[in-house]
């Protein structure tokens, strides 16, 4: 094995480009979770919402023959699951961790069951033509940066757009400041007239929508099929990214990119390094997540996270 043969410029560009691609669903889900957690609600169920989102998107895309209908359906599903989570955690004040786990089991069960109902008669796993890559004119021609950042599907561009938008919303708008107030000190926010429940409902629903979109990415823009193992813990990895990113969209982007690149690298190395058992390479993203979590640590977690707000 000669490393200079492998580490060519085109190989590195390929790895970086697939890294950006693979980070897309993680960053989308992490962004949504940043909204929810900044308002004081931790949604552990996003792994389940992602899986159900990928199924609904896939199912509707097949039924209608329209990928965008699939995207719309998964957005709707995400909003609905966010609403359910908000109802349980904000209105009923149930333990957020327990609700998150319940939602995880419920959503996983729903995806697995309805997939079998809808496609029980097909012998081959059904598949769809996924979203095509959109090369952005001019920008994709830039050497090196072009193929890495501007030669992706619509989902990746949505993710790029979502970063500045959510940064602006969280740090520069009254809504964003209210989110912070509600997440840090809901009693005070309530006293000055902020509707704590409304803010938390909105944030959890935003989180649900972005998680479902992240899930739909897998079936509609990456693989073109649905499988029960499609998400494979990536919802939980997104949760780790939120901690690593210190509840800040830009840092979550950075963490997500590192993660995506490592994931791309391990997939490629499985072919190149046949002498290393592939199991150890498959482990890499999960080991990295633990390391990422240790770097981030609970430094600046919103104070009111996981604590129900009960008006005195």
């Amino acid at each position: 094995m000669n490393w200079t043969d492998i580490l060519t410029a085109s190989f590195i560009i390929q790895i970086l480009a697939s890294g950006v691609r693979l980070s897309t669903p993680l960053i989308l889900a992490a962004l949504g979770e940043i909204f929810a957690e900044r308002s004081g609600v931790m949604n552990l169920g996003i792994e389940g919402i992602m899986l159900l989102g990928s199924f609904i998107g896939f199912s509707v895309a097949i039924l209608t023959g329209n990928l965008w209908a699939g995207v719309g359906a998964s957005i709707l599903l995400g909003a609905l699951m966010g609403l359910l989570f908000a109802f349980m955690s904000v209105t009923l004040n149930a333990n957020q961790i327990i609700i998150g786990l319940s939602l995880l089991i419920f959503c996983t069960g729903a995806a697995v069951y309805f997939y079998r109902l809808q496609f029980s008669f097909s012998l081959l796993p059904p598949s769809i033509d996924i979203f095509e890559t959109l090369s952005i004119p001019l920008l994709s021609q830039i050497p090196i940066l072009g193929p890495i950042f501007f030669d992706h599907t619509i989902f990746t561009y949505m993710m790029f757009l979502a970063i500045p938008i959510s940064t602006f919303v969280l740090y520069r708008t009254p809504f964003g400041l209210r989110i912070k107030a509600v997440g840090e000190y809901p009693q005070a926010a309530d006293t000055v007239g902020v509707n704590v429940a409304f803010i938390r409902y909105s944030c959890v629903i935003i989180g649900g929508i972005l998680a479902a979109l992240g899930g739909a990415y897998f079936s509609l823009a990456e693989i073109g099929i649905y499988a029960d193992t499609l998400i494979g813990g990536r919802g939980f990895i997104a949760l780790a990214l939120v901690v690593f990113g210190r509840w800040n969209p830009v840092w979550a982007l950075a963490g997500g990119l590192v993660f995506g690149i490592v994931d791309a690298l391990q997939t490629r190395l499985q072919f190149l390094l046949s002498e290393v058992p592939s199991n150890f390479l498959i482990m890499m993203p999960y080991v990295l997540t633990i390391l990422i979590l240790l770097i981030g640590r609970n430094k600046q977690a919103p104070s009111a996270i996981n604590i129900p707000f009960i008006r005195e």
Partner: protein
Amino acid sequence: MKILMITIRRIYTSPITIQIGAVFLAFLGGAFLIALSGASPIDAYQTLVQGAFGSKNNIAETLVKTTPLLLTGLGLAVALRARVFNIGAEGQIYMGAIGAAFVGLFLGDIPTFIGIPLAMLAGFIVGALWASIAGILKLKLGANEIIVTLMMNYIAIEITHYLISGPWKDPTATEPFTAEVAKGIQLPIIIPGTRLHAGIIIAVIATILLWWVMRYTVLGYQLVLTGANPNAAEYGGINTGRMILLAMLISGGFAGLAGASEISGLHHRLLEGLSPGYGYTAIAIALLGKEKPLGVLVAALLFAGLVVGADGMQRSTGVPIAVVLLIEGLVLLFVVGSDRLRLNWQTTSKDGEENELD
């Protein structure tokens, strides 16, 4: 008359009644979901109950499934009492299985009376050590134990895959699994003609033991207090950090024991798919059982019956087995939701003094 009214009200607002009601509602929801598949819900549920408890063999199969669910659920219940969220039982089951398989593969012909205890102990210790990594990272570095334990599931499963397709692979087989473990670590069959092995006895003993520990020992009290009010516990001289680590060790140990029992009692070799998500189902079981050992026993029987029965249901009515997972999710959502509704309702009703304190 007034006494009768109060008694009736006590019964229908008691936590147990509401819990049963919530489970019933979840199954009603399940009936609706089954109807979507075109099958009759009544037929489906009938074949489900038949499949779970209809014959000696079916009951034995249900108990075979109960064993790992109960063992794992017990440990998780203890952890939950201490408010430690261990989502890594799935990986800890695999690590425990690896520990038991090591004893069964590399220690030669050992007599049963040494082999079985040794295999169980190995499973417990390896599972506990694996879980302790998350506990130590939480205590020393403040890492969120939910994410760490979850990631370690994937790592444990990859380690298993590596062992069974690499160094521990049965050289005479093409499939990825190990050779059969030594006879000396195999648990005996307790009902001849079925697959029911002595693992269920271990699980029941563990239930009684943990019930006693949680109810009558200082240790149990310290664990519960740590979960209920860490500040008070710390003020009362309890080392809460040590309790958190202990809760991790106990839950990991029992999950490891479940893995060891699956190797020694059922599969007799380390193989892929050893646990089809028992570690996750056990969380639901611990929650449904109200985090108490006896409750966990009932919940484990219920869920094991569901899984075994669903197999028969799929064969005769065509309803996919996956409906069980969906019903599990509904049960959890309804149970947690109704419990909160009860508490909210009680705090706003006149009988404020009847509020439950725990």
